């Protein structure tokens, strides 16, 4: 059976269980899902087209030379820098990383890209500074960058 169908079945079973327990809450949940869909689908459309652009215009050699295993640890750093500046929804991170992987990117570099794309955001810096202060923000972003690099090395060695 198709894996997507399995996930969908699980989601619907949970939805039915939720509805049996509390119809009102379940309606709220569906509304929340709709809102997420409205936010994420347009971004996904852009990301999917960008994936096409990468496939059509960037050769395998180029991706492999920047993010491939030949780059070693530098590839992790490049992945992290790209991820830090990437303004993409977490849901879009994995499909995009998938294309990079198909085009020869190393697992270490992909880990760097995925984690920083989720955890470090140039676009969220102002909000973070406003809510938690400069010291907190600097410490968190720098420390995250360093620790992700170390995890990237683990990925490079194990996978």
């Amino acid at each position, binding site marked *: 059976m198709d894996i997507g169908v399995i996930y969908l079945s699980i989601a619907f079973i949970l939805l039915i269980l939720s509805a049996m327990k509390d119809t009102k809450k379940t309606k709220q949940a*569906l509304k929340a899902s709709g809102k997420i869909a409205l936010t994420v689908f347009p971004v996904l459309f852009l990301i999917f087209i960008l994936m*096409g652009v990468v496939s059509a215009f960037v050769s395998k050699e180029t991706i492999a030379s920047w993010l491939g295993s030949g780059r070693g640890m530098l590839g992790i750093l490049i992945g992290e820098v790209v991820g830090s500046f990437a303004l993409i929804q977490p849901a879009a991170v*994995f499909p995009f990383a998938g294309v990079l992987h198909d085009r020869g990117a190393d697992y270490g570099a992909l*880990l760097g890209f995925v984690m920083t794309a989720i955890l470090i955001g140039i676009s969220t810096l102002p909000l973070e500074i406003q809510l*938690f202060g400069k010291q907190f923000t600097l410490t968190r972003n720098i420390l995250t960058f360093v620790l992700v690099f170390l995890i990237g090395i683990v990925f490079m060695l194990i996978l």
Partner: protein
Amino acid sequence: MKKLVRDALIYIAITLVIWGVIAIVSPAKGLLVGEVAYGAFMKAIEIIIAVFIIIGLIQVWVGPQTLSRLLGKEAGWKGLALASTIPLFIGGSLFTVFPLLKTLRDKGASIACIMAFITAWGGKAPLLPLEIEFLGWRFAVLRICLIIPFAIVMGLLSQFILDKLQRDA
């Protein structure tokens, strides 16, 4: 809601312009771009719908109140342990997580807990199906396994650094 729709339309417009320009300059490349985008869409659509439904359910059943009850007052190791695992299962983006954490911080959660929370939230367990589909289960499992120690180290280390900075200041 209006802003949501407007943002959605902006994204769609930008995407169509990019695709349109490519298709006009080179119809063959334009077709290729469309094919890759369609393939990725078909590969992901069922999983994405399932994930959205589950995230919606999590948002309603594990609301901010539940979280702050769990994390606001729990101090020490127990708080850190909770902060390094529970956020794995919640959705949202940094834009929604930061305000929630500000509330927790104001309610007395430690710096270590807040830092661990953000990091563990990056585990993104609800998106696991998508991650497995595009990057393989070995990548996904290793990442989820490492995110918990990552969150704990992140919490302790940043607490140490920020305490030191505060004392020196």
